[in-house]
């Protein structure tokens, strides 16, 4: 029996030209703009740097130093934890928000979408700074609570704690979770939900067995974006996190900007990249995740 033919992606449209040539501009862009800096970073990680310059070499001293110094591993674990918690928090908040958006009537949906987008038209650094007068000892929340007699003295823990770091990161990255889930929900056929209900499925069962599996690609896409953005974040933790507001990205930046040790900075960046690849590979081994990744 002959194997079934793969359906044409664009039925009715005749292809023209050599596909490889047509793809050439995109491929050249990807190789030159996308991959070249990554390759350069990996190559640089084997070079030698002193504070006054970098010289070509091929040695593993930078990686040996990363393995030998516990501070880098501790920071890596801390960074992974922050990124994971931020992703989960964004998911828990972003999914209901996306559901809310997708279930609005068309007339009001636009208004809600604009309302959610507007803060993101401002630089995220500025938006992060905006938390300082809100959460500070003399900030809006403390002043209000003191004025209405709920507290006698300002609450110090509102700002410059790990909790504030999470708050800032979730605030900055929530849109990257909400939007893909919203698009998945928009594509969800309401008749499927009706059919499940008609067949006697309870609401919790419909959510668990129908809606969540069908929107999993959106959830995965959002989670991936938030995780990758959070793992490389360093401005928000530094501004809001207090003395412990440090992430792996901070020490990478320190190597480039303060100690001028580009080779070691490149080794740190490469290590982070390898850990991210490892985490994503492990995630891809989970069957539902794998199915969603391979599906259209």
């Amino acid at each position, binding site marked *: 029996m002959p194997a079934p033919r793969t359906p044409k992606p664009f039925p009715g449209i005749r292809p023209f030209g050599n596909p490889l040539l047509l793809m050439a501009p995109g491929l050249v862009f990807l190789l030159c703009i996308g991959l070249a800096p990554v390759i350069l970073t990996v190559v640089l990680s084997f070079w030698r740097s002193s*504070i*006054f*310059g970098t010289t070509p070499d091929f040695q593993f001293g930078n990686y040996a130093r990363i393995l030998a*110094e516990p*501070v880098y591993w*501790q*920071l890596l674990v*801390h960074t992974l934890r922050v990124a994971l918690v931020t992703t989960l928090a964004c998911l828990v908040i972003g999914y209901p928000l996306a559901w809310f958006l997708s279930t609005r009537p068309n007339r009001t949906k636009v208004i809600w979408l604009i309302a959610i987008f507007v803060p993101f038209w401002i630089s995220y650094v500025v938006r992060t700074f905006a938390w*300082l*007068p809100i959460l*500070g*000892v*003399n*900030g809006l929340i403390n002043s209000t609570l003191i004025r209405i007699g709920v507290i006698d003295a300002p609450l*110090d823990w509102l*700002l*410059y704690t790990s909790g504030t770091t999470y708050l800032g990161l979730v605030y900055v990255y929530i849109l990257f979770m909400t939007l893909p889930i919203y698009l998945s929900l928009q594509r969800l056929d309401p008749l499927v939900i009706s059919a499940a209900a008609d067949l006697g499925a309870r609401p919790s069962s419909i959510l668990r067995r129908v809606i969540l599996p069908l929107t999993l690609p959106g959830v995965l896409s959002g989670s991936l974006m938030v995780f990758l953005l959070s793992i490389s974040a360093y401005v928000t933790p*530094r*501004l809001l*996190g*207090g*003395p*412990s*507001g*440090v992430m792996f990205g*901070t*020490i990478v930046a*320190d*190597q480039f*900007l*303060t*100690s*001028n*040790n580009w080779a*070691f900075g490149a080794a740190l960046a490469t290590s982070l990249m390898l850990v991210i690849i490892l985490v994503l590979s492990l995630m891809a081994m989970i069957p539902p995740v794998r199915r969603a990744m391979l599906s259209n």
Partner: protein
Amino acid sequence: MKSFNLDRRQFLAGSAGLVATSMAAPAGVLAQSQSISALMPGVLLPESLRGPAEAATGAAIENLPYVSPTDTVAKLLAPGAQGRYDLINNMMNFVTEPLMAADALQPLDLSKVPNWDQLSPYWQSQAVMKDGEVYMIPCMWAYDSVLYNKDFIPEDDEVTQSWGVMFDDRYAGRIAPRDDAYQMITLTALHLGVEEPATMSRSDIKEIQAFLISKKANFRTLWSSFGEAVNLMSSQEVWAMVGWMPMRLALQKQGMNVTNNWPSEGLMTFQNGLFIPKGSQKTDLAHAAANFFISQEYASELAKLMDYGVTNEAVINGFSQETIDRVGYDIFDRGVKTYPYTWPAEMDAWIEAWNSFKVA
């Protein structure tokens, strides 16, 4: 609507006229079309001084992005860097040794820097010289100390006259160190009795790191920029922090009851110098700019705007006693113990120790 019709003949005639006009323009107009590439902290070329600086130079001053002294050295020693920069203003304490060792600077022609004669004899003696020629001219100096709010930390508290105010448990939660490995480890080492922090051994650095970690709960947050630091004090989020002279001025101008300490263990000082890298093709213009940056006009304005110490003798002599007392321009005369910034031999270990403190 009126339209313009321009044929080829008219266009060529017009163009020739424009060329002729530009050739006949005065030299000053031409000079404005020239530029030099400078590398200096933006705070040393404030907008109010850019116009006078460019007029005195006879060229636009393109101040390229400044990062740090080490970055400056790296830029100057990078392959192909020769000729890219015309004038540098940087921290002499950190850059002199590597740049002179690499023979990266050219001697200055003092006949093109007439304001050299206006420098105080002390600051002339601080110029970097080799084989009787001047390579770097000091143009400003400053110190870093603890800025504190007298409304919360009494001036007569003895600890204010020590780096120890940064670690005092009575002010826990109201202190802000700077997110800077060099400065924080230096001041902690000085506080713990290390005479020469720059030459500390790795075990000494570990001790400093342990002490900083033991005091971490006392710190509200770390600051890394001018605006962030000033905001921390003005919002009363913190009562004391390591700070710069212009920060103290900015806070006092806001009406804050802020002053600085004179740490008995040694006030951290540094001086900036002007120099011309080898390979500059615009040395005449660079000399003219350097001449302006040690002039009376520049020095008096810089002191007024930033509280920085200057090297021009007429400006130094013109300070009122009130200004000298307020700013501390006489620290060298009244015997305040100082510790000049010195680049540590084990800077990588310092950065690792500081990161360990932050991760702890």
